[in-house]
């Protein structure tokens, strides 16, 4: 039975929301264009209802899609491709936005919410602002419309309510069984099954959605020729947008740090860059808006930057969703064939905005007088320019695949590829922009709060510069002494270190001064300190991250030039750990203790011999009683939920003082994007230890050697897999596989001792059983020495015992470990930044409210 009703309701709601947004756009447009006040008001009221209908329809779409996913209606393509029965309830919500359609919906939803907030907080600007809002909603709704225009056969949008049959009509199953419904879905990408992925996308999309507000206000200002009044209501929103988008980006970085194995929080991937660039421009924008509020300059720049921010958001949407990035990005969305529609969306608003600004350009007031170098405007403007240049550099390099497409479109061949070493390439520029931002934020804030003139300029800055220089050298001294890093090997780092310290000192002293007066005004200083801390955190954690898993085993198979270059370091950055064999690595002694299984409702990991995982399910059967942390969770034979796709490698890190930390790096069988490796982190105040398993043998697929038969007596010594082995004893046992034997049964167990590496002894105990007249000789495996043994024969005449052995590669992992010094400065800096932003938003919103209530 197909559940067709819910999908039809959902699709109807999409069409309704689309139509209502068209009506609202038209109505609000009429309201702005009409001169008659009564008519204006009536158009406005009409369009407001249209927007409410639109918002209600959007909620209807979301509710329908959610209930399809939640109830596992796998006849729907969206539910089938993004969810599965095995998924815990708290991740069901992430399925919603895994696909492109769902993430569009999330975006539309935020716009609807923000639109309603604006309608109810600012009546004066309602008509023009909401006209822009409704127009944007029209475009976004068209992306999920899923309607084929008759006659010209043009498909508009991709609906999330497609049935499997409609989405994949070529599957042969439809001929055989037209009412086929998949048993289970493909599931949510396991990499996204993480709490950050529940909150990161909504935050990021709220950030994107809020960039529309300053844009809509700017357009409204141009439209109604109120060139400066829009700044006040737009400013708190611009700040709010900066906060939310910034936090969203950092959340993504933090998730990457914890989950992906590229060794950090930022990979200069186009998807990351595309969200970071609008944020940089947005930050530049509200600095210009603040300049205008206090000094009536930079109004034209504010217009340009507000427009640029919004257009960059559209451009990044185009990059990530049109498929133009193709192989340049790992995690862009799959192409839904929307590139044409996305391009029209981008060009429409680009033309409208640029056209309107050009049309009104002459009327926009500008300040012709020369800007003094000794004014706060000058220094803030320098900072904003640095931010824009930084954004320009990132977007210029990220757009390389776009240039290829354009050149190919003109009939030429272009084979540009992204820079081979993205981190080095981008850092080369961004380091200097970082220095600029730090230094200008310090100088700008000082000019803002102090009366600095040409005469006292030198006097004022002498102290902070000297103090920063001294502190810089103190930090360099301690960095070198603790062997964290070598600043003299990379002089540019010294400049950034100085910039960060200078920014903290100057902003700190200002913060101290304002706090004595009115602390509510100190948002700027606090935010800038946060930024400087983040820059220093990035400098240390990335610039001085250190590989500690240097291979000291001394093996070097070749003296080839490529091996000996760079002091042979290159081919030594990963260590190999044999199961249960301690290995020295830098300041630690490491021991790989085996593979672990993750139970869904257990505090600790499970050993593989404790459970047997049921194939194609997310449950396992307990093979023994499971007791953890002093509490019994399951009895033998119980079924328990597990995460079957995740494997963990238990690794002990013993430091010089004998303290042991156990880390569990993860290996994930990921059917959606190939298997993936996640790190385990040991978080310390100063330095994080970051480790992941670069390679592990697939234990299910390993090959055993040919069977070798041995006939030996007790205490005989022999060789097994290159180890010395002894048949220690053979005894009679009364139990087999945990069950007592019957009266006519018998069992004999042999103990074979194997001397492993480092003289560690292992025991293998195969059993020979006669039960109910049948002989059984179950194989016993030992992964530590790679031996499988069967007890095959007992010869009472000679007193010898028969064994069959197979050998294989011993269990091992190849591990990489990196130390990340002072990475916590980055995270703490982020928190400080958030506090500063919030203070600034509250202050600017109060200003707006005060003036609005006065009727200004």
């Amino acid at each position: 039975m197909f559940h067709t009703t819910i999908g039809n309701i959902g699709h109807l709601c999409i069409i309704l929301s689309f139509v209502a947004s068209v009506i609202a756009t038209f109505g609000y447009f009429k309201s702005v264009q009409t001169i008659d006040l009564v008519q204006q008001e009536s158009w406005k009221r009409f369009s407001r209802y249209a927007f409410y209908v639109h918002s209600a329809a959007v909620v209807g779409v979301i509710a329908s899609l959610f209930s399809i996913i939640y109830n596992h209606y796998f006849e729907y393509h969206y539910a089938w491709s993004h969810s599965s029965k095995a998924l815990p309830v708290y991740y069901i919500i992430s399925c919603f936005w895994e696909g492109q359609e769902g993430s569009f919906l999330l975006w539309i939803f935020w716009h609807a919410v923000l639109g309603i907030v604006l309608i109810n907080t600012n009546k004066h600007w309602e008509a023009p602002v909401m006209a822009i809002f409704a127009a944007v909603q029209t475009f976004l709704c068209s992306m999920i419309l899923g309607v084929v225009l008759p006659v010209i056969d043009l498909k508009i949008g991709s609906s999330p309510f497609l049935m499997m049959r409609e989405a994949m009509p070529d599957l042969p199953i439809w001929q055989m069984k037209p009412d086929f419904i998949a048993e289970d879905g493909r599931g949510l990408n396991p990499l996204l099954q993480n709490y950050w992925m529940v909150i990161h996308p909504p935050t990021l999309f709220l950030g994107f959605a809020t960039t529309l507000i300053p844009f809509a206000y700017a357009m409204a200002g141009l439209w109604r020729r109120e060139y400066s009044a829009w700044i006040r209501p737009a400013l708190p929103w611009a700040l709010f947008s900066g906060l939310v988008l910034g936090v969203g980006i950092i959340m993504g970085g933090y998730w990457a740090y914890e989950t992906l194995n590229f060794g950090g929080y930022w990979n200069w991937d186009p998807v990351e860059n595309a969200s970071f660039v609008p944020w940089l421009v947005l930050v530049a924008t509200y600095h210009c808006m603040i300049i205008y509020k206090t000094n009536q300059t930079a109004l034209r720049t504010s217009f340009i930057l507000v427009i640029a921010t919004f257009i960059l958001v559209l451009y990044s949407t185009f990059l990530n969703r049109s498929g133009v990035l193709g192989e340049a990005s790992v995690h862009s969305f799959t192409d839904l064939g929307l590139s044409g529609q996305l391009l029209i969306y981008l060009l429409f608003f680009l033309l409208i905005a640029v056209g309107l600004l050009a049309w009104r350009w002459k009327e926009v007031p500008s300040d012709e007088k020369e800007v003094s170098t000794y004014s706060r405007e000058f220094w803030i403007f320098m900072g904003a320019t640095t931010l824009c240049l930084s954004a320009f550099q990132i977007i210029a390099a990220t757009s390389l695949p776009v240039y290829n497409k354009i050149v190919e479109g003109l009939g030429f061949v272009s084979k540009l590829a992204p820079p081979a070493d993205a981190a080095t390439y981008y850092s080369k520029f961004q380091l200097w922009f970082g220095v600029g931002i730090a230094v200008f934020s310090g100088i700008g804030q000082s000019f803002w709060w102090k009366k600095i003139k040409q005469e006292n300029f030198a006097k004022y800055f002498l102290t902070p510069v000297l103090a920063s220089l001294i502190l810089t050298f103190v930090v360099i001294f301690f960095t070198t002494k603790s062997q964290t890093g070598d600043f003299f090997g990379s002089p540019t780092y010294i400049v950034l270190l100085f910039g960060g310290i200078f920014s903290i000192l100057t902003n700190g002293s200002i913060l101290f001064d304002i706090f004595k007066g009115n602390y509510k005004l100190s948002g700027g200083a606090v935010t800038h300190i946060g930024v400087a801390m983040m820059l220093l955190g990035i400098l240390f954690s990335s610039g001085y991250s250190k590989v500690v898993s240097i291979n000291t085993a001394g093996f070097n198979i070749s003296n080839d030039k490529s091996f000996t270059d760079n002091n042979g370091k290159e081919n030594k950055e990963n260590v190999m750990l044999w199961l249960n064999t301690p290995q020295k690595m830098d300041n630690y002694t490491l021991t790989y203790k085996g593979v672990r299984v993750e139970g869904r409702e257990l505090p600790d990991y499970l050993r593989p011999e404790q459970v047997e995982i049921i194939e194609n399910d997310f449950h396992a059967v307990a093979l023994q009683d499971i007791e953890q942390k002093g509490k019994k969770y399951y009895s033998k034979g119980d079924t328990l939920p597990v995460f079957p796709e995740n494997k963990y490698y238990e690794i002990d890190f013993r430091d010089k003082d004998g303290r042991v930390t156990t880390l569990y790096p993860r290996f994930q069988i990921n059917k959606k994007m190939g298997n993936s490796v996640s790190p385990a982190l040991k978080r310390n105040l100063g330095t994080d230890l970051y480790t992941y398993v670069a390679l592990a043998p697939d234990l299910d697929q390993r090959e055993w050697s040919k069977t070798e038969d041995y006939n030996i007596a007790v205490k005989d010594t022999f060789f097994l897999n290159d180890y010395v082995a002894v048949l220690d004893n053979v005894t009679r046992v009364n139990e087999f596989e945990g069950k007592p034997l019957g009266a006519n049964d018998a069992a004999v167990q042999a103990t074979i001792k194997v001397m492993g590496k480092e003289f560690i002894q292992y025991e293998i105990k195969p059993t020979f059983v006669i039960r109910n007249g049948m002989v059984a000789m179950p194989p016993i495996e030992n992964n530590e020495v790679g031996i499988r043994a069967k007890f095959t024969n007992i010869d009472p005449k000679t007193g010898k015992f028969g064994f069959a052995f197979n050998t294989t590669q011993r269990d091992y992992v190849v591990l990489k470990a990196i130390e990340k010094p002072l990475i916590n400065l980055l995270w703490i800096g982020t928190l400080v930044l958030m506090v500063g932003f919030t203070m600034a938003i509250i202050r600017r919103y109060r200003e707006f409210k005060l003036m609005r209530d006065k009727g200004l």
Partner: protein
Amino acid sequence: MKKTHIFGLIVIAIAVAILVSTGTEASTYTDFADAEVKAKSGDVNQVHVVGKLKKSATGDIEDLIYNPAIDANHLEFTLTDNKGRSQKVVYNAPKPQDLGKAEQIVIIGSMEGQVFKCEKILLKCPSKYQDGNAEFKEVEKPAKQS
């Protein structure tokens, strides 16, 4: 000339410098023959080469050398580029876990003598469910650490 103009000129100069460096430092998609020519002419930029691994009838990769017991950080294999030239490739990092499953791979690096020294491997894995739609997965050899 006004100060604003000087300022504007400086900004434009930096922007142009950025564009030029983007153009010159971008890598290119190419083949082994071209990579060899580039390396011989002293071009130090790394290139992208797209190619296929030689596989036996049973699906094993031929000419693959990786023995973690001796050196976990050394992988050698032979790649055939789109023009049909086969080339020995050396990758100084552990073997990417899904190498055997990849239909097509992209290697990023440069020719050094008779071998291609590879810094990064991109795997194009056949996705189980998306009919014909391959997805790229990045395996990055971690940046050189000092």
